[in-house]
């Protein structure tokens, strides 16, 4: 499976430019993390990729053919977890997954049990959806996306509402699945991307700021991350982005990213989060 996004722009009827002439290619296998602040265009990109939207301009190709003409094929190979979604609350967990399995044309009941096991919901299979917590509902959402072992898995904020242990577990599941398919996940949690994605896409204001491997993104931030101690944490130099402030015995240790670090700041090894913030800041035009 190969997806090509060529010069795609998306302008909503309200006039908002959600995506501006972006291009990218995705081939199997691939686990791509999309990072970006709110309103960067992550969800719009995902909706375009599932043929839920039609781009204002540009083309999206699935194996070389226009995506909309391949809608039926796309849907048969797609697992999709939207950012927000509803469930039929009167159904039990098992009934709902069975329903979604039927929509996908999956008749084997073992497949339902399998995904419920994978998302740790097997024990709650007879629980009505209305009784589930936010995290459990999210797991049901993930379960339906995993159904049928889809070749293209698009996950919009999949780890929202999950506890740390579950997050790690799901990260591993996504990683395993990406061995023979395309997995695209958008998230605010940089750590998720850092730990499993072999490719990262940084979106900001509808543009791609970075598209490459996480190590490359990090390496580009070398020399732009620093640490200094502050008495009260207020004396942050101008044109710097504070990544973290940590109280220590010697004062507040501030971690910053900046195009040019002040002299008194000790340079530090960048993380993906530093790199992400640095690029976003750069994208905003800060120097």
């Amino acid at each position, binding site marked *: 499976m190969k997806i090509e996004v060529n010069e795609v722009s998306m302008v909503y009827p309200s006039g908002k430019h959600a995506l501006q002439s972006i291009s990218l290619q995705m081939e199997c296998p691939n686990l791509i993390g999309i990072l970006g602040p709110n309103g960067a265009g992550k969800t719009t990109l995902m909706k375009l990729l599932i043929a839920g939207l039609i781009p204002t301009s540009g083309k999206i190709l699935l194996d070389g053919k226009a995506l909309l003409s391949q809608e039926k094929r796309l849907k048969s190979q797609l697992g*999709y977890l939207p950012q927000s979604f*509803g469930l039929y609350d009167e*159904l039990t967990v098992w009934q709902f997954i069975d329903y979604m399995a039927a929509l996908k044309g999956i008749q084997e009941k073992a497949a339902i049990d399998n995904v419920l096991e994978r998302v740790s919901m097997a024990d709650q299979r007879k629980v009505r959806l209305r009784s589930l917590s936010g995290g459990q509902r999210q797991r049901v959402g993930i379960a339906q996306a995993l159904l049928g072992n889809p070749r293209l898995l698009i996950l919009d904020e999949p780890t929202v509402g999950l506890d740390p242990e579950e997050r790690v577990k799901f990260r591993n599941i996504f990683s395993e699945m990406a061995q023979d398919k395309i997995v695209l996940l958008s998230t605010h949690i940089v750590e998720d991307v850092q730990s499993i994605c072999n490719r990262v896409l940084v979106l900001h204001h509808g543009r791609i700021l970075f598209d490459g491997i996480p190590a490359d993104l990090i390496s580009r931030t070398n020399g732009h991350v620093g640490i200094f101690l502050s008495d009260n944490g207020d004396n942050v130099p101008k044109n710097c982005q504070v990544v973290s402030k940590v109280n220590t015995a010697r004062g507040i240790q501030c971690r910053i990213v900046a195009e040019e670090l002040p002299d008194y700041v000790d340079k530090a090894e960048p993380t993906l989060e530093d790199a992400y913030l640095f690029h976003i800041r750069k994208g905003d035009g800060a120097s």
Partner: protein
Amino acid sequence: MKTFFLYRVELRRLALSKFTWIVTVLSLCGPLTGYSFLQQSNASVMSGQYIANPVLAGTVIGAILWAVLTLIESNRVYRNKTDILTDAIVSPIRMAFVRMTALASLSAAACFLCVLAYLPYTIVKMDYIFNPALYMMSFLILMLPTWWISILLAAAIYQIVQRVELAGLLYVVCVYFSFSRFANSDFFSRWINPIIITYSDGFSSLYYLRIALYTRVLWLALAGGIWTLSLICIRRYQKNLLVSFWRSLRKVYLPVTAAALMVTGIMMWRGQPFVDHGPAEFQYWDYYNTINDSKISAVTYRLTAKPESGQLHSIAEYTSTSGGSGIKSIWLNPGYKILRIMCDNQPVSFTATSEFQGDSQRTDFNLTQSGWKTLTIEYEGYPTMLRCFAPYTWGNEVTSDYVSLNNFSSMPSLTGLNFPGTFTLELTLPGYMTPLLNHQFIEDYTLNTDGTKTWTKKESSYIIWLTACDYNVESFNAAGMNVNFVYSKKYETIMTEYNMQEALAEVLSYCTEHLGRLSWAGGSSLMMVQRSAISDGGNAGEGWVEWGESTFTAGNLSDPLKGANAAEVFVHEMVHIWWGGLGVNCGSEWDVSNNDPWSDEGLTVYTTYRLMKDKYGEEYAKQYYIDVWQAAVDIQERGFYYRNPEYLDRLPEQYRADLSTMNRGTNLYSRMPLMILKAEQLVGGEEKMDEILRSVQSRFANNGFDKPFTYQDFLDACGLQEEDLILD
């Protein structure tokens, strides 16, 4: 295959929804309202009371409920954002289709539950009259398709506007339209409340069921077309209506199917075969002298009923000694299609005109040569209703259980020709039917190889009323007359159980003795014929009496105001034969000063009382008649609104109407007989009263019942004043 699989899971999902169960349970309760206040059909026959009315009420209520469920379910997927998940897997158009079929299936299951739920009660109440086929057909023709139409419309509206409150409002408008004055004038537009004027217990109910089936198919096509069109409007790719419409339009099969269905529905509406397409106003007959120049020596009508299709196939054959040439016209009910006109075995071209008179349409044909010997007109179809009288049948019906035809409906009218004085009728009917031509039996018949019988009769009167049915005929002598008592075999049980023949003989003897000879008894014979409720109502002529079948319903026969038991109620109905022509029924409060028509009902009740007194004695008559009347009048007079009519205006219209109906019943069946009883005492006893009533009979009969009998007429006949008959 996948669609079927989807259908199964959607069906199961809906079956697990509490809304579905609520709607199913309420739909099951819907028919209950038809027993009492939501009566849309004639409740005086058992099939109307226990089948038509409950089913029609359940049809309307269920249709609305299923539409509400459709709106809820359609909106739910968007409101809950479940569509975001499902749309990523299946096209929303396919999901809409699957949801529709699932809802249709569930409504079918609910309808089936209705069939089962009301079956025992209906069987118990209707007893020997119960017709399982009619019961099933009512649900399958009236209820289920209407629910489907409602679901289709509700889903279509939602898919077009995609706002539940607006869709609900538009659906209400559609319902209102179906109950509007417009829909009443053109009953084909009644999509949610199909029209069933009445059913028949003893004859056939297929007439109105056929119309209902036609309108259901018509509306299923229309609603299906609108719904298919609405699939194109389903919002996709987060686009608005127009863009979504434009994109889905590329699925060519959708607009093509929508157009085909809607065109089918519109064509069915425009070309409906039940009501003539003539002028809205009644056009009186004035066609004469159409082939006046042709000496007709013999006329033969060969009528073959085809009950399975409800049609009549006919050949009218005219033999002439010197047939004239030129443009000729025939008048025939437009429901018949003229197949061919032959003159001396040569085809003659003909053209149907747009001219209507009565229930007939003019067709012109050109006879090119004079001196022709034989003219035949072959036609087939079934008589349409007069547009101005629709949906009333005017006595025309061709069904498997009953054939009823009036003259203009059954044979072409060549009025003005030199008629030979008699004509020959050859009538082919199913073997189980017995025909009555102008209320007389046809004696001669031949049995055909296919089991049908061809009845032949020479008839001198052109006015033809033809009925045929699986009649039961009881012949006996009473009051010096040979009486033929003819009724549907379905009533055989009750006729035997209550010995109705004996009761009828008693009535004829008693009334002849006390009130004089029945004014329309012709010669020494009397034909008494029961008539289908479809063309209900009493009628009488020289030597024959017809009465509607509602006389024999259990509800009527158990009316204590008419008699102490079923046999006595039957006697009451037979006594009507004497008094039936006196006038129309009076209102709830007859107004003496306005000289309003007085009801024949009071005289009938009084005469029945007299007969029972004669038969069972004074004590019996007092207990079951006078005391019953007095009790009813006492209850009436104790009523607050009877004593204080000035407060009536403050009541809602429905309550006022109910009170008025109650008062009317008491006045007709209790107050009037009490007043006649009082008059009897004042004029000098029963013999004197009989004398007065005989004179009333005689006077009105001699005058041809040309004016209604008023209260003042009664007072004058008795020589009494108004105040004389005020009850104590």
